[in-house]
């Protein structure tokens, strides 16, 4: 009897042992554990780009070249859909990456968790095979967009901005003369509607796209900080510009495609890319995302968000994406070498040609559809960060107050007056609760 009970226990232990060996064999293959103190060895790159996106392919190709040149192995892992929280959790549990993708709205969380390695030595070094310091490869505004008050948080590779997208081939009138003021824009919408087309593709299932109308109207009204201020005091909501912007948003509803509230992301932008709708207010990344469904006859192009009101501010949104070195990683030195390799002109160029986004380096051209946007963003002296930095500095307010109220406004569930009143109320509650 005693023997048999031991057998059962042994069997359980044996299985766990076998499972451990099998799983640890699978899980830690590229030497994530043996990087140790050596500068060579290997690094782990945790990427948020799914493997079949152009960006992932560019970086994977660069990783291969890097390994061939330096001997340092690069283990590219996919980030789960938990976003920044997954990176933080992984780093805390000791299996954090050496390099990961970053953007300004995640930087505060990473700073708080102590994950951001100082990058000044990377800035003052040249890119692999080039002579100029990396810092001089980038416009100053881009470097500061990638920094917070504690310094540079990540080395940028892409600039993101926003505008109104359309197909120049199907709408030559817009290509030659885009509406410059809000009134011209509304007239254009009426013209499109009269011609039987659906003027605007609205991605109802994506709150951060629904908010773009209100966002840009506020930026035009008050310049940088207009939206962020709404999270700082409840009284900011009393400003008549807020109510005016909300009314404009409500007035846009007839121009959205029918059934937009029930449109699952990314169906609306795909339908727009195929020509079912005329305009799409979106980010500079749109052409890259719809690449696989755009017909070859289309010529996607953008025009900037129109001016609004007599005293319209010319603000540009300058957001950046880049790579952060994990201060709690095993091989930060190797990660830095990899970054120096990644920022070579030949790879950053591909951000423009393959991924159809605006590359961050000053000496690299954006694709034709984004050339004007690139110029405007880099030339402007009034820029703001992603979502007016509200997503970074007031994330809970951004998600729970702004996005949720704006969705109701866009879907017509609340009136502009209710939007303002509830915004004021909820912001006051948010400030009182003291959550970040």
């Amino acid at each position, binding site marked *: 009897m005693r023997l048999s009970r031991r057998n059962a226990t042994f069997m359980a232990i044996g299985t766990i042992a076998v499972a451990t060996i099998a799983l640890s064999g699978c899980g830690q293959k590229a030497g994530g554990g043996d990087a140790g103190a050596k500068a060579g060895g290997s690094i782990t790159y945790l990427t948020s780009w799914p493997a079949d996106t152009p960006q992932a392919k560019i970086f994977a190709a660069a990783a291969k070249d890097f390994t061939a040149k330096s001997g340092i192995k690069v283990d590219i892992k996919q980030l789960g859909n938990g976003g920044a929280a997954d990176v933080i959790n992984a780093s805390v549990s000791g299996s954090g990456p050496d390099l990961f993708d970053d953007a300004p709205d995640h930087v505060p969380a990473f700073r708080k968790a102590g994950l951001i390695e100082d990058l000044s030595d990377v800035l003052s070094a040249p890119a692999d095979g080039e002579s100029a310091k990396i810092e001089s490869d980038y416009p100053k505004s881009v470097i500061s967009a990638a920094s917070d008050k504690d310094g540079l948080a990540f080395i940028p590779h892409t600039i993101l901005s926003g505008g109104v997208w359309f197909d120049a081939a199907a709408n030559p009138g817009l290509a030659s003369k885009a509406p410059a003021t809000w009134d011209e824009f509304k007239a254009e919408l009426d013209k499109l509607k009269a011609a039987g087309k659906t003027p605007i593709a609205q991605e109802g299932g994506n709150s951060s796209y629904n908010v773009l109308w209100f966002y840009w109207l506020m930026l035009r009204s008050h310049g940088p900080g207009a939206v962020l201020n709404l999270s700082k005091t409840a009284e900011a909501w009393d400003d008549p510009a807020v109510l005016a912007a909300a009314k404009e948003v409500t007035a846009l509803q007839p121009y959205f495609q029918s059934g937009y509230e*029930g449109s699952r992301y990314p169906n609306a932008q795909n339908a727009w890319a195929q020509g079912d709708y005329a305009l799409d207010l979106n980010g500079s990344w749109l052409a890259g995302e719809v690449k696989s469904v755009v017909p070859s006859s289309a010529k996607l192009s953008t025009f900037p968000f129109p001016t609004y009101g007599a005293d319209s501010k010319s603000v540009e949104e300058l957001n950046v994406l880049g790579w952060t070195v994990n201060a709690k990683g095993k091989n930060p030195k190797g990660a830095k070498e990899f970054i120096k390799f990644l920022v070579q002109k030949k790879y950053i160029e591909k951000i423009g040609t393959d991924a159809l986004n605006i590359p961050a380096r000053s000496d690299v051209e954006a694709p034709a559809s984004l050339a004007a946007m690139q110029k405007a963003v880099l030339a402007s002296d009034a820029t703001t960060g992603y979502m007016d930095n509200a997503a970074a500095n007031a994330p809970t307010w951004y998600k729970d107050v702004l996005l949720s109220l704006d969705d109701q406004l866009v879907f017509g569930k609340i009136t502009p007056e209710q939007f303002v009143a509830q915004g004021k109320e909820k912001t006051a509650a948010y400030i009182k609760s003291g959550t970040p």
Partner: protein
Amino acid sequence: MSSAKRGLRAFIWPAVLVYTILFVVPAIYGAGVSLFDWNGLGTTAKFTGIDNYVFILTDDAFRQSFVNTIVLAVVGGVLVFLVAFCCMAVLRQMKGRGFIRSVVYLPNIISPIAIGAALSFGLDSRGALNQVLSWIGIPPQSWLGPDLVFRCIIAGLAWSAAGFYVILLMSAVDGIPEDLYEAASLEGVTKLQAFRMITFPLSWDVFATCAVLWVIGSLKVFEIVLAFTGSANSGVPLSARTVAIQQYMSFNDPSGLPRLGVVSAIGVVMFLLSLILVGLTRRLTRRETLEL
């Protein structure tokens, strides 16, 4: 106690140990964590007493998620058992009932993620359902819009869960002797009346168990909502959040720092809610066992 019975102790203790140390003790630990404000390993935990519970009960998002969960449990339960009772009334005599049972049970063992992904693809404003509706002249609806999405989730959940309860209740019906029905039909009782007077009372006990199982399960609904509505950019809309979803969103808090105390508090509340609802259900369905 005979030595044989004493020997059985050895059979039992591994399971009891595993269950206690790895399930019950963590639950108690979780209740402990719920009294703190903690952002994870590497940060300090601050004792805050019942603040987390007060937060849960007063925060709008959480209140909405509680309401949603209760609505899901009640409406979903009514739908599921309506379907199950209808099946009980007719399935006994239907040809091919083994095949039917298998096919209606199948969605129950399929991952809710797959179900959510497939169904929500069809429910998009330009998707399959609106197309079918347009063939019969009904105007397209925004099924995934904030008004209707939760109802679609309840419908999808009921559709996938009903099969399980159908087979459970049918196995009870199979235990009812055939001559009862024969005698009834000789006396001119219709099939519906037979269901009401024979089938239903005699399977009440199984129904009571099913009700408890449904209540416990409906409180934990999570994956199907994620797959129906979530996207990396927006999270789950308020009208569709269940308690389990709200807990997950507190873990993946927008600020990037998980609020472990709140997450644990929700877990404790879910357990208490589960006990209360199970008790309520058992009380409501209690009745003396009907002997044949």
